[in-house]
């Protein structure tokens, strides 16, 4: 299909504001009489607040109000509370004070006297699973995502059955199996049985989760740092205690989220509650340290994977057990995603998955770019190398042999895919990287430096369906595309809106995107998370635009004779196909739509749309030609986001430091909607992967539960100097049959394949040392080079 807009670069409408400093993020708003909020956070990893005396604080000049857990809606555990009298991690907010300056609010916190009753706490999930081990929640130690907590303890016998440095395995929370796994292992030419750890690490968005709120005429105006828009409005309304229509979310820009701001988070509503109580606008500026305490991080894994290969390298059996270090809240189901990802990316003929998410007295965890899938990539890719090396098979060949295609089924339910071109992506990358030549360089010495060559692959689901598209052609002919997806910074809110221009055959200059503020009448859209936007939003915009197009054709037929089929759209007009000189401009058609009323101007609408979309259509009714429809386009199978990375490093055997000399990232994401945006994702995902592989992890003091990394220099996001100065990108650009423009999502796996490719390259440079631990930090490399034992125990988490 030839496109006018899809697949072309353009200048997204928000980029100028970003380079001029005019882009307003949550902490950039001001209001008359604005107060400043500071939070008093728990100094203990687990405690009960027995008594709280803020009387001295409230006497201070400039202190205006206090908010405690008793003033805000109770969100039942294991979900995150707004404020709490049962703090479950160091940094859990107990109360908030509002004052005329931050300094006064901070000083006032020092005058609050709190009596804590310390409770036993747990950092290592295995400690909680041990008989009699501490539970984070009153209702148990296993906290299900958006669900309840339950108690699962393993028996002392379960623990005793595990050998030293082997994962004990008791009752899981979830499990599935397909095929005959035990027979597979019996027939395997090679069986790897490996214990692994993947450390959790913070999201580290550049913008901390500051929030600002005020009330006017019964409505709550909330400025939050949010990846998503409409999708988060109902939850924010619930946390604020108002009806959905009374919550105005303003979130035009979001300074990075990576999953941590994808859905509504309760603490963002603290300024709203405070503002309601004291009657003044409230700003809650979250500091970097606070962001590490109460922000979000990726779940950590302790696990075991057993893999059975045929002589050729085909994976015939796999058995995965994941214990998830889930933080003090209901953790995202990374542990389950990992099982699904193993099944999809490596297509084992038989597989068993078991997993259990354990709550720990550590800061809340949340979905982070490739939640579960990317940890799995870091576990599996080095083991694919190990298998290839043991069996004498090429490392690329073993991956191709096991890679999925469009007919692959996966997981316990044997789900299907819409299409999959991972092999093509791998070949594209191998060609760009020149794999055949590069692999010969593996192990080459140059003074104290040795070359390592690595390859990685990863997956994430890449789209959803069933949301609403909405646009309005105004009487001046401008096409206003309403999008409620949010603005994470990927520009996909804009590139997917271009589908509307594509369908309507109009120029992009004639289009205006309406977004970022609930008052702009936004439709019900999925959030900007889960690599879904390119797929989901092209579908919803297609639905809305097709509805508008039909109305244009019908109006033209009404006014100029014939039937709708006799007309088409192009050049900002609807015209008679046999004689294009017979036409209506969009402006004329929109004016006719207003005269006609009914469905044409939004007075009537499809019943199957979400109530939020309907309210928006109602508000716009009579102001132009309204295109509004739910995405009912057929779908079949899961649209996957698939990616590969190739990396060449030079590792200094004297210092353990390495430099990444070459990076090639390739994506299989269907039709490329926006090349520049995609290239940003491939490179940016690569940068985050470099951090995940070698730099980032959370460290806690096991004696006191204190997090040790509460600044960038301790938590180590990669800088310019940690990444290659140039990063090459490639893509398959093969359309997905279930999307009207062929698009699929991509953002998340790009991090996992880069992380795993770097680990693979490090192992390669070391001549085949497989750490089974992510990140691989320099002391691990030095110990490996010196043939010394590592400084950690195999299953040790979060304290090295």
């Amino acid at each position, binding site marked *: 299909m030839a496109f006018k807009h899809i697949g072309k670069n353009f200048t997204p409408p928000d980029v100028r504001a970003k380079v001029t400093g005019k*882009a307003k993020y949550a902490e950039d708003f001001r209001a008359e009489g604005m107060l400043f909020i500071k939070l008093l956070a728990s*100094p203990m990893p687990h405690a009960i607040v027995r008594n709280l005396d803020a009387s001295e604080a409230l006497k201070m000049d400039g202190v205006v109000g206090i908010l405690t857990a008793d003033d805000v809606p109770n969100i039942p555990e294991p979900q995150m509370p707004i404020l709490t009298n049962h703090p479950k991690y160091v940094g859990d907010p107990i109360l908030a004070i509002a004052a005329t*300056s931050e*300094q006064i609010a901070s000083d006032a916190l020092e005058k609050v006297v709190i009596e804590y009753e310390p409770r036993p706490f747990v950092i290592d999930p295995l400690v909680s699973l041990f008989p009699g081990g501490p539970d984070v929640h009153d209702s148990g130690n296993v906290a299900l995502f958006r669900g309840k907590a339950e108690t699962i303890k393993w028996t002392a016998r379960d623990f005793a059955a595990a050998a030293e440095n082997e994962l004990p395995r008791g009752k899981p929370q979830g499990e599935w199996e397909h095929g005959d796994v035990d027979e597979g292992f019996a027939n395997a030419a090679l069986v790897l049985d490996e214990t692994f750890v993947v450390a959790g690490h913070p999201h580290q968005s550049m913008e901390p989760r500051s929030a600002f709120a005020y009330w006017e005429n019964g409505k709550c105006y909330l400025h939050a740092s949010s990846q998503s828009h409409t999708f988060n409005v109902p939850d924010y309304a619930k946390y604020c205690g108002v009806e959905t229509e009374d919550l105005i979310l303003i979130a035009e820009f979001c300074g990075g989220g990576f999953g941590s701001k994808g859905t509504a988070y309760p603490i963002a509503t603290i300024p709203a509650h405070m503002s309601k109580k004291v009657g003044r606008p409230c700003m809650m500026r979250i500091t970097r340290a606070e962001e590490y*305490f109460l922000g979000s991080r990726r779940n950590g894994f302790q696990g075991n994977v057993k893999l059975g290969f045929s002589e050729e390298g085909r994976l015939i059996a796999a058995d995965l057990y994941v214990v998830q270090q889930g933080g003090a809240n209901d953790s995202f189901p990374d542990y389950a995603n990992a099982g699904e990802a193993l099944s999809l990316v490596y297509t084992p003929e038989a597989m068993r998955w078991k997993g259990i998410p354990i709550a720990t007295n550590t800061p809340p965890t949340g979905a982070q770019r490739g939640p579960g899938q990317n940890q799995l990539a870091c576990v599996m890719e080095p083991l694919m190398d190990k298998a290839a090396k043991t069996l004498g098979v090429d490392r690329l060949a073993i991956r191709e042999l096991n890679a999925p295609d469009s007919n692959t089924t996966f997981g316990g339910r044997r789900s299907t895919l819409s299409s999959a071109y991972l092999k093509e992506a791998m070949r594209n990358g191998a060609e760009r990287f020149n794999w055949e030549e590069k692999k010969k360089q593996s192990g080459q010495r140059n003074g104290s430096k040795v070359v390592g060559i690595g390859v990685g692959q990863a997956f994430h689901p890449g789209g959803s369906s069933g949301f609403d598209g909405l646009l309005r052609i105004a009487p001046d002919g401008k096409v206003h595309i309403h999008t409620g997806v949010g603005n994470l*910074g990927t520009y996909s809110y804009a590139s997917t809106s271009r589908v509307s221009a594509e369908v309507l055959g109009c120029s992009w200059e004639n289009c205006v995107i309406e977004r970022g503020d609930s008052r702009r009448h936004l439709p019900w859209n999925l959030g900007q998370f889960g690599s879904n936007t390119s797929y989901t939003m092209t579908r919803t915009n297609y639905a809305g635009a097709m509805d508008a197009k039909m109305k244009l054709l019908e109006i033209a037929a009404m006014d100029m004779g014939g039937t709708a089929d006799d007309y088409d759209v192009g050049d900002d007009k609807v015209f008679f196909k046999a004689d294009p000189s017979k036409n209506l401009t969009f402006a004329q058609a929109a004016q006719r739509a207003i005269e006609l009323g009914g469905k044409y101007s939004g007075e009537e609408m499809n019943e199957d749309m979400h109530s939020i979309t309907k309210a928006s259509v109602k508000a716009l009714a009579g102001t132009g030609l309204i295109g509004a429809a739910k995405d009912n386009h057929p779908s079949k199978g899961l649209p996957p986001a698939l990616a590969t990375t190739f990396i060449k490093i030079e590792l200094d055997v004297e210092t353990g430091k390495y430099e990444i000399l070459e990076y090639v990232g390739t994506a299989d994401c269907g039709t490329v909607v926006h090349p520049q945006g995609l290239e940003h994702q491939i490179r*940016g995902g690569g940068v985050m992967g470099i951090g995940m592989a070698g730099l980032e992890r959370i460290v806690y003091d096991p004696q006191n539960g204190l997090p*040790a990394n509460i600044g960038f220099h301790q938590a*180590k996001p990669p800088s310019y*100097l940690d990444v290659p100065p140039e990063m090459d990108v490639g893509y398959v650009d093969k359309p997905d049959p279930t999307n009207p423009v062929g698009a699929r999502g991509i953002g998340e796996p790009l991090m996992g394949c880069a992380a795993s490719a770097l680990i693979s390259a490090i192992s390669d440079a070391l001549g085949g040392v497989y750490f089974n631990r992510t990140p691989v930090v320099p002391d691990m490399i030095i110990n490996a080079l010196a043939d010394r034992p590592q400084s950690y125990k195999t299953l040790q988490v979060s304290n090295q």
Partner: protein
Amino acid sequence: MANDTHQDANANTGQPPVFEEARDPVTRRAFIKSVIATGAVASTGGIMLVSLSGCSDDATPAAGSVERLVNLNINGKSRPVDVLPNETLAMTLRYKLGLTGTKLACDRGECGACTVLVDDVTHNSCSTLTHSVRGRAVTTIEGLEQPDGTLHPVQQAMIDELGPQCGFCTPGQVMSGVALLKNNPNPSREEARQGLAGNLCRCGAYDHYLNSIMRAARVS
């Protein structure tokens, strides 16, 4: 040397100390230090008491501090403003002068999001006392655009190359790029990389920012 544009501690080492350390694991000593730091503050009852000032819309001074009226030269204009002794330039700009383009992301000189120019040299405004810039020319992101809307070549190149992703670190990246080109109008890519090395970007847009700087150098 491009790095000389950074007049903070980072400049002398050729690489910001944060990243020297970033290559290493948390050493026992660093770990203990950080625990002690956290623990010490924790014992006061609230662990997040970072010393802040200046972000008041109200004349109530914090105990023991008095605001003084000073004239600052911001983006070529004289701006009278009441300043506390311990007030940082970032806070003055953001909360007293309405210049919110300068971002606070770490508030301790680790990330460069708050980069401004003082007499054409990059400074982390979160770690610069406002009183220290009296009589000096401060340029912020808002001061680059010409009155007719013409952007600085670095800004324009960032649009053409689609430099930013989320945009939060962008003003700092732009300011470091502007300072670099003032000092070295034709940097090599490696010099540009060194020149911007004090500016973190979590989206990982580094390659795109470098492309933008190189384009700006070509056209200006």
